[in-house]
């Protein structure tokens, strides 16, 4: 798979100390425009894997390539900048800044990604356009993010992940707190956006019922080996 947006090979990472923990991923790829659902129970190493992909932690060995760049070769500040430019993140609880407006929240990633900011042009116009595409009401950009309904906050979180048009979106159990109808509506929106932009989507969940919508469903156990105990 030559057009892989995400490519992990021989990655090993270990937490030292009392709660020693190690994670090994031999080979894991996500192709351009591909949607992958990564299933795993609590403690299966999902959060550690996402942190490694996002570059907030670095592996002890191995390569993590995103859009052709091995992020393990980058300095910490360059990894942060790379994350801002190449990865959109959607959290479990959407995690909008409670004191910011909708526009503040959506435009936040652009503040840390100068190239994407320049590419986006008028960031506010882009944010408004995304809000419109995601079915948010007119004039919502000036509202406090926390004043919106849960469904609207989901859309703002999606808009925030998409605004920089990153090649990879990582979603960390974004539907875990939603009922079945809301889950379906949220995924509908998310898939419509990532497909129109040819964005790769890596979603982590413990709910196998979501798998039907994804190109691939992978169990954490199939790609990662977790060991616990004294390091």
């Amino acid at each position, binding site marked *: 798979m030559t057009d892989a947006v995400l490519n992990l090979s021989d990655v090993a990472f270990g937490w030292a100390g009392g709660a020693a923990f190690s994670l090994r991923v031999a080979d894991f790829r996500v192709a351009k425009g591909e949607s992958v659902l990564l299933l795993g129970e609590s403690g299966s190493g999902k959060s550690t894997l996402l942190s490694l992909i996002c570059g907030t932690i670095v592996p002890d060995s191995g390569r993590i390539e995103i859009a052709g760049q091995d992020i393990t070769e980058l300095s910490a500040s360059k990894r942060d900048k790379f*994350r801002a430019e190449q990865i959109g993140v959607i*959290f*479990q609880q959407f995690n909008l800044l409670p*004191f910011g407006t909708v526009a503040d929240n959506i435009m936040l*990633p652009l503040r*840390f990604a100068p190239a994407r900011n320049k590419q986006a042009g008028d960031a506010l116009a882009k944010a408004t356009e995304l809000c419109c595409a995601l079915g948010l009401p007119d004039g919502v950009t000036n509202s406090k993010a926390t004043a919106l309904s849960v469904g609207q906050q989901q859309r703002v979180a999606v808009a925030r992940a998409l605004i920089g048009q990153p090649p990879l979106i990582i979603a960390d159990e974004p539907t875990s707190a939603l009922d079945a109808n809301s889950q379906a509506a949220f995924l509908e929106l998310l898939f419509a956006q990532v497909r129109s932009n040819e964005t790769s989507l890596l979603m982590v969940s413990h709910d196998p019922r979501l798998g039907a919508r994804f190109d691939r469903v992978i169990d954490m156990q199939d790609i990662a080996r977790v060991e616990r105990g004294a390091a």
Partner: protein
Amino acid sequence: MILRLAIASLFARALTVGMTILAIALSVALFLGVEKIRTGAKASFADTISGTDLIVGARSGSVQLLLYSVFRIGNATNNVTWQSYKDISARPEVDWIVPISLGDSHRQFRVMGTSVAFFEHYKYRQGRSLAVADGAILSDLFDTVIGADVAATLEYEIGDPIIVAHGLASFAEHKDQPFRVYGILEKTGTPIDRTVIVSMEAIEAIHVDWQGGAQVQGQATPADELRQMELTPKAITAALVGVKSPLQIFRLQRAINEYGQEPLLAILPGVALQELWGIVGIAETALLGVSFMVVVTALIGMMATIFSSLNERRREMAIFRAMGARPATILSILVLEAVVMAALGVLLGLGLLYLGLFIGQPILDREFGLWLAIDPPSLREVWVMLAVIAAGAIVSMVPAIRAYRLSVADGMVVKT
């Protein structure tokens, strides 16, 4: 945008942030207020007497002589004989000389005997002369010219009678020789405002029938008869002297200090003031030290506020990190917040200071004769304010570094 988000984040914690800003504001207002009072008191003292080259009194301490002769604080331990006064007057270096006689009072105000020349030669605030707001200067033996505060406090008008009491806290009054208000001086911001001025002859006249601090039984010389009497004073409390040439000041001072007929002391007002500042300097430094510590305490309070908010803000920091913020950005956001809080505290403190000055200025003037000018902040005060903001940034580094470490440890994993 980061600044706007930092400010928005502060607004989200309005109560604790507001209390922190208030604490900084109060400490800054206190510090600048102490500084204002310190410089105001110095300026007020220094402005009290201007254009007088020497003050002459009985030999004591130079500060004591300055305090009782100019500021009406304390009393003379001895008087200067009229003969000594005449001898000094006759010296070739003397351009002008004005006698002062203190000792009696009216209500809570000092009565000062002097000559008409006092109104010509007494200068204050860089050479300003006394001016009569209403009436005129002394004409009759029993005329008084009163200071602005005397008139305002006692609601005196021209023509009102004044009974002078013997001594400073005495029930014995010179009831048989009432004075009348003949002139009211304009406000000067000096002890003159709280002084009842009469002629030297009047001081002599009201004591004609007195011996040993009490009126001689059955003796009351009529006022008209007193007006005809020779009322040359026997002694004075002090004298203000103007010298013809500045080069002659020290020669005259030495001559007076070495005067053989009685022990006298001649002081240069400016030098005595410096000596006074030297004495009060320790208290001044202590006061500044205390107010400095209050500022430090407020800044530590701000540090504690930021510290206590860190745990609840880990989610916020994780969001920033996930969006690509570097740990250094997290650190700078916290420092920025601290700078905003310190700057708002300083501005609010400055506002409180000027509000306090507007309210306190007439009270301090009325109660203590301390005139605080309401001027724009001085360069020194601007530096103090900038230093507080810089100190705010520095103390915030402690929680900011903690936040930096937390954000490195947490990464984008949101702690709930």
